[in-house]
């Protein structure tokens, strides 16, 4: 039986898949490139007509406006310093918002599965309410409810909660700023910082030692107690030795009762943004956690009932660890969303990077470069948060064979 000869002639060029593949990709690139070139060419031409430059030299010019709640910011500082202030504020609001959203979301997500009818219904109402209104509305709502029409007095008549016994104030509450205790350095700060670093490293070493000891001999490791003990011991010794480099700075109103002169002041814009976005994102987090808890196989719960674990033990040791594995990727998404939502802070006057960019464009800075910087900042945040949480995700993943 003769097998037919394989044909050795190539199909015509216009039908040859290999050629088409290459040609198709080349064509796609050329098309995209031409479009971009047209757009950017127009941009260059139009900007040239109006005598606006393309470089980033404006970053070295003075900012010319004062940034809210940053008394140490000099309006003559260059614009790139303003950008850094904006980035810092965005990061702060993002971190606190994520923390609040995480904690609140966890509570509400678990509350929704509670046996208590009131808790379950209230959690459900909370989630359904906050998930369905725009974040901008939540931010303005929060600012109105808590600060503008809320129970707090203005700064001149602020509530000062005293610290028992001493003449100091523990907390200052007003509708514009809150004063909380901060830390102040009295010298030797660098040395203390170094010793703190040493303490942390020592604690980590002790942790590993106790864990290895446990693995080898089966003794209870008590590693938390050991590490904490070592950490505290080194910190206390260095604190005393350096003569108390850090002291608590109690909050105090200034002479004219117009600003918080010492301690750490939190402004209402920050609290509105972080609080409101925390509340808003918590509703999404609650749904994700509820979904992930429900996704844990029911057999796990049944087994924990059979072992007579308490509710708390069941959640802490069986359900939540497995649920977190499922929940981490969508939670990463929510964290990113929160950071992106801080761009809405212009409504409450919180000076994060988008608000500052809007102000500087309004004052004549070139729009293209400013918006490009803005996008780069947010891309940076996205990348950072994705990286961190992806590491967390990978640690939590099951090792499958």
């Amino acid at each position, binding site marked *: 039986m003769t097998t037919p000869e394989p044909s050795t002639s190539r199909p015509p060029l216009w039908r040859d898949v290999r050629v088409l*593949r290459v040609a*198709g*990709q080349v064509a*796609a*690139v050329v098309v*995209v490139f031409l479009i971009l070139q047209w*757009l*950017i060419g*127009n*941009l260059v031409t*139009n*900007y040239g007509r109006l005598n606006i430059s393309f470089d980033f030299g404006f970053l070295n010019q003075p900012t010319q406006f004062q940034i809210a709640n940053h008394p140490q910011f000099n309006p003559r500082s260059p614009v790139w310093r303003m950008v850094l202030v904006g980035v810092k504020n965005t990061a702060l609001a993002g971190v606190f918002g994520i923390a609040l959203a995480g904690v609140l979301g966890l509570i509400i997500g678990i509350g929704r599965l*509670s*046996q*208590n*009818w*009131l*808790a379950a219904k*209230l959690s459900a109402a909370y989630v*359904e*309410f906050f*998930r*369905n*209104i*725009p*974040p*901008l*509305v939540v931010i*303005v*709502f929060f600012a*109105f409810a808590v600060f503008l*029409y809320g129970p707090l007095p203005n700064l001149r008549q602020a509530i000062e909660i005293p610290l028992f016994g001493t003449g100091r104030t523990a907390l200052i509450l007003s509708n514009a700023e809150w004063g909380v205790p901060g830390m102040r350095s009295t010298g030797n700060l660098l040395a203390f910082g170094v010793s703190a670093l040493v303490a942390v490293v020592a604690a980590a070493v002790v942790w590993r030692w106790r864990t290895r000891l446990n693995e080898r001999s089966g003794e209870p490791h008590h590693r938390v107690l050991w590490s904490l003990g070592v950490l505290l011991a080194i910190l206390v010794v260095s604190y005393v030795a350096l003569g108390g480099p850090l002291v608590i700075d109690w909050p105090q109103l200034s002479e004219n009762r117009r600003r918080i002169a010492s301690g750490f002041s939190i402004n209402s814009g920050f609290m509105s943004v972080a609080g409101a976005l925390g509340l808003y994102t918590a509703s999404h987090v609650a749904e994700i956690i509820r979904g992930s808890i429900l996704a844990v196989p029911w057999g796990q719960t049944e087994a924990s009932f059979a072992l007579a674990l308490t509710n708390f033990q069941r959640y802490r040791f069986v359900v939540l660890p497995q649920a977190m594995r499922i929940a981490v990727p969508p939670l990463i998404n929510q964290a*990113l969303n929160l950071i*992106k*939502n801080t*761009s*809405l802070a*212009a409504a409450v006057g919180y000076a994060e990077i*988008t608000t500052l*960019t*809007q102000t500087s*464009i309004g004052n004549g800075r070139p*729009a*293209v470069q400013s*918006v490009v910087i*803005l*996008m780069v900042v*947010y*891309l940076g945040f*996205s*990348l950072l948060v994705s990286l961190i949480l992806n590491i967390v995700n990978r640690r939590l993943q099951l090792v499958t064979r």
Partner: protein
Amino acid sequence: MTASTLEPSPVQAPVGGPLTWVRSRLFPNLRSSILTVLLTPLLAYALYRAVLFFFVNGRWDVVTRNLTLFMQGTYPRDQQWRIVTQIIVLAFAFGVGAATSAASQVDAAREAGLPVVKQGFLSVLKRFWSVIAFVLLLLYFANTATPWLVMGGAIAAFALGSLARFIPRRFRSVGWTLSVLALVAAFQVVAGTVGYSWMITAVVLAAGAWSAFKFEGVEGRRAVVYRGLAAVAAAVVTYLVYMQLVFPGVGWDHWSGLHLTLWVSAFAIVLSFPLGLILALARRSSFPVLRWLATGYIELIRGVPLITLLFMGQYILGFMLPQGTDPSSITRAITAMALFTAAYVAEIVRGGLQSIPHGQTEAALALGLPTGKMMRMIILPQALRAVIPALVGQFISIFKDSSLLEIIAIDEFLGVRSLVHAQADFRVVAHAETLVFVAIGYWAFAYAMSRESQRLEVRLRAGRK
């Protein structure tokens, strides 16, 4: 010996009424009781304050007097008949669409041998209760008769449209085409038929003709040619008709209020879907260049907030186009929103594509299906069905994000508040009332959409074995 028969004890109905329920639900154990005791006064206080705000102290005349402003913004009042007509035509479109989809579901259930569940009128009410409640609220605030007449007209149009369920199965696609056509007509009534609008209708009619005329008797390529001819004929007829009837309207640059919010969201959704689909396919394509381009675009857009894209549209897009072509603010905003949503849609669809077992692709290749047919008939239908809930979630998100247009001075539903509070009577009062009203409006629509998405999710999951 008499065998003692074990009689099963009669089933006892659960004893105790409300008291048992209270005990088991609210005070089952100590911790739960403490929770109840803590939560109840808070709840009572919140309810008390809410009642005070809504019924006693609230200055709701701000909404009553500015209701038209909230609904249609600065739309010229003498052209209001267009909006009224649009609402009625939209109600008709929804009636036809709902009836056709219900009929298709019944057919599919019958074919699959599953029980046929009829959707009663009451169940529809229950599904969309939030929207209905919001409309009733609007009627309560209205101080003219027009809204009531419009409601009556809309209900009548919806009922008329739902007669479409009697269309026989062969012509079901006529129902869909009619529904989409009515949607387009509603848009045209408000915006006018000048300019490029004939193209939209032409495309819709061509697609409708293509799907309606199946030419099943004719074989292979000739059927395709005939169908193509039918589509082209439909497009040409549309063009000729439009050239005859010159119907000026009010372009979308002049729209504002809730009207604008709804249409902007609709456009962003409709425009983002095909683009997102293309991006998702490009991201999984075997051409490395396409993959890189698509991935680069998606990661770039997903990493930045929508407001930066709106800024780009506002400040930069005008310079990127040659002089003389100056798209209006709203065109730019819709473009930015569509490009933004497309990246998210692409990710969702990609997830759906990944969830299809690879065996499907292998089977299709084994059958000799070319890639196009394989995608169209096997992969995409399954993938899209799987991700419909996630897509609806994304669409809810873009509906809420339309509130960001307020930041670039487009007066959509949230932005109308600025207009209201610049008026002399409301400069310093009633800020909270307008905010609550706007929040209720957004909530009503978003809640209805999210319940629909949950229903779809349950139905799709139940459909799978």
